[in-house]
């Protein structure tokens, strides 16, 4: 039987393996070395690679992000550790104006092989400034790739691919999944970008989930199976590039789809995917494609409120049931 490891261990292994393979890879960020590492994910790395390749930075996100962009332009492969996804707002210029555009604006003379590792996800009682899922902001910018691992297996395979990519990649890990275990092979593997994973086959409705919402979709599919509704669950794994073909093929088969993502629903990832499905599979749809994202409110601290702010298996199942029974969800 294949071993099971946690998502944090999978990330740690991916980084360690790539650092052994390629000595231009280094990592920098707050508390990543001697201070103990955020979420204990990077433990052991500084002992193996030393403080020259595992670099503790001051609490100055724009500074170390800028350093990493420069290093990437001049031959290194930096991994930036951004302790909370919410801090993305601090590095927007370095990431979106510099890293994303340098290859284009230098006429292809410069590459920025940089990985920005950060996280997302609510229900950790971290309150509004430490609970956001901001991947839609990044996915909006041409020149940035966005990976969203849904398990330890994906976390390792996508991280290794990201480090080897010659372009800036932002990886969003769900804070709540760091201790989730999954089967991860001992031997080396990579997961290519832009290849979705069909987690469960079904015929009545397609549930497309990203990151931890894949689990939500799978649980919803389980509920629906008990009611005779067969749901297909798909994990796009990277939202940029997006494996449109697999999603469209599924929706053409099932005629119905719900897109589930933990970012805010307004102007979000769910809207983008739903829109593409509607444009390209319109004549195969028997019901509107429905978006399910976080409510359009700051993520509350209150546990009772926080839990209902993001999509739940029951909520997804309820919506799927309506779509499959032909209930008009938005009356004309």
């Amino acid at each position, binding site marked *: 039987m294949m071993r099971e490891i946690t998502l944090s261990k999978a990330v740690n292994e991916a980084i360690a393996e790539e650092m052994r393979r390629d000595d231009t890879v280094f990592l920098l960020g707050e508390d990543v070395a001697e201070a103990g590492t955020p979420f204990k994910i990077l433990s052991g790395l500084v002992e193996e690679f030393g403080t020259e390749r595992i670099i503790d930075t001051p609490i100055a996100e724009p500074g170390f992000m800028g350093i990493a962009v420069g290093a990437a332009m001049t031959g290194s492969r930096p991994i930036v550790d951004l302790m909370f996804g919410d801090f993305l707002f601090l590095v927007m210029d370095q990431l979106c104006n510099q890293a994303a555009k340098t290859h284009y604006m230098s006429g292809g003379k410069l590459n920025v092989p940089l990985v920005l590792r950060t996280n997302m996800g609510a229900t950790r009682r971290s309150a509004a400034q430490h609970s956001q899922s901001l991947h839609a902001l990044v996915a909006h910018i041409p020149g940035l790739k966005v990976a969203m691992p849904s398990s330890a297996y994906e976390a390792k395979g996508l991280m290794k691919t990201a480090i080897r990519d010659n372009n800036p990649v932002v990886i969003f890990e769900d804070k709540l999944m760091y201790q989730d275990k999954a089967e991860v092979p001992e031997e080396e593997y990579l997961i290519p970008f832009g290849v979705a994973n069909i987690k469960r086959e079904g015929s009545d409705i397609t549930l497309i989930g990203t990151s931890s919402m894949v689990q939500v979709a799978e649980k919803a599919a389980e509920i629906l199976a*008990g*009611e*005779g509704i067969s749901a297909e669950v798909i994990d796009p794994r990277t939202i940029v590039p997006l494996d449109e073909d697999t999603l469209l093929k599924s929706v053409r088969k099932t*005629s119905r789809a719900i897109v589930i993502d933990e970012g805010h629903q307004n102007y979000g990832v769910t809207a983008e995917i739903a829109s593409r499905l509607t444009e390209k599979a*319109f*004549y*195969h*749809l*028997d*019901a509107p494609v429905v978006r399910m994202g976080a409510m359009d409110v700051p993520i509350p601290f209150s546990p009772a409120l926080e839990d209902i702010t993001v999509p739940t298996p029951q909520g997804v199942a309820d919506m799927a*049931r309506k779509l*499959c*029974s*032909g209930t*008009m969800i938005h009356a*004309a």
Partner: protein
Amino acid sequence: MPALGMAQDTGLIVSWLKQTGDAVKSGEALMEVETDKAVMEVESPADGFLTDVRAEAGQNVPVGQVIAIINDTANTSALSAPPAAEKPATVEQAPEGGSVIMPALGMAQDTGLIVAWHKSPGESVSVDDVLFEVETDKATMEVAAGHDGYIAALLAEAGQEVPVGDIVAVISKAKPDAPIRQAASLAPAAKPAPKELGPSPVPDAPKPDLNVPAMRTDAQPNGRILASPKARRLALEQGLDLSRLAEIGHPPPYHVSDLETLRTLPTPAAQTAASTQERRITARVPTSSFAEFLSWSRAEVNGDGPVPSHLMAAFASGSLRVANDLNRPIRITIEKFSGRTQQVVDADRFDASIQPEDQDDTPDLILRDMTCSAITSLGLGPSPVPVLSLVTDREAYEITLDFGIDQLSNQAAIALITGFADRLSDPTRQIL
């Protein structure tokens, strides 16, 4: 004093960077000006010598006012000469009052083209009234008067291009005796005024009524059919007419599952031919969903699940209730292959009851359940009440509804069999 911002009336001269008599080049910084937002350097608009400086550092100067002259020579005799070579030729003749300048509407804008005046000389204006429209390289914008009063002078014609900061109108407090209208003399129009604008740009002309014929009001008639894109496509491919579902009152929106109902409808030709009192509708539903539901419910209650025919009676009762909009008790007689009959009252409700055999009454519907037999079709002739028959070939249930037109309307019959078929193919509907 240039207009450096969009809502700027004056500029404070922070310092002069050149002295009187200095040679300056076009683009060279002359002075620093502070507005409400920022301190900016103002560049020389021409090569020459700085002469006739009329404002000192620290002075707040209204936008559009002359503060210095760039001369061909450093000769300060220009000081004594009347400022004839400069712009204010027109301004000098202008009456007293608040002046309106060509505003800077963009960051890199040198001139603005006056598209039209919205007020004429002598007319009263208030501060927020639109005075004129300006076209820049990016857009056409409306400019407000900025003062209350009367139009004492309009100093540029529609169609003229006017440098930013130049005075284009004067608004006086009192009604002017002889309001002035003239073209801007120093800024030759880059684009000639369009002929139609030239002679009479007076904007008093009545605005065209907006009685554009209302569009699309009849493009979406009330009879629009609500159907899913896939249902529409399949109907088109299979030559089915969705409007017939609407005609019989089948509730929209239509989905792929409703096409089944559409298929069971008699063709319009057949309908006219049928003159008998007896009607029949058939439908087919896969057995899998109901079978799954049964095995699930058996598992839920540890083996002893609901009696299938009672569930079917519940479906029939519920469908009939919806189809005929009934609120009274509904009696269904279940006839089985074995010959046993059983009457259930309100099978679709929580207080459903099975009648004792001797208290059977005339039912609302007979449910003939032949699913445990080898029968695959049946036609048993007229009955005093509608008969819903069920047979199966293991893969699918074939549902037949026999009824007389005095027992059920066509519309109710279709709703009944559709409702029953839907519940059988998706048993959770009954619960909902």
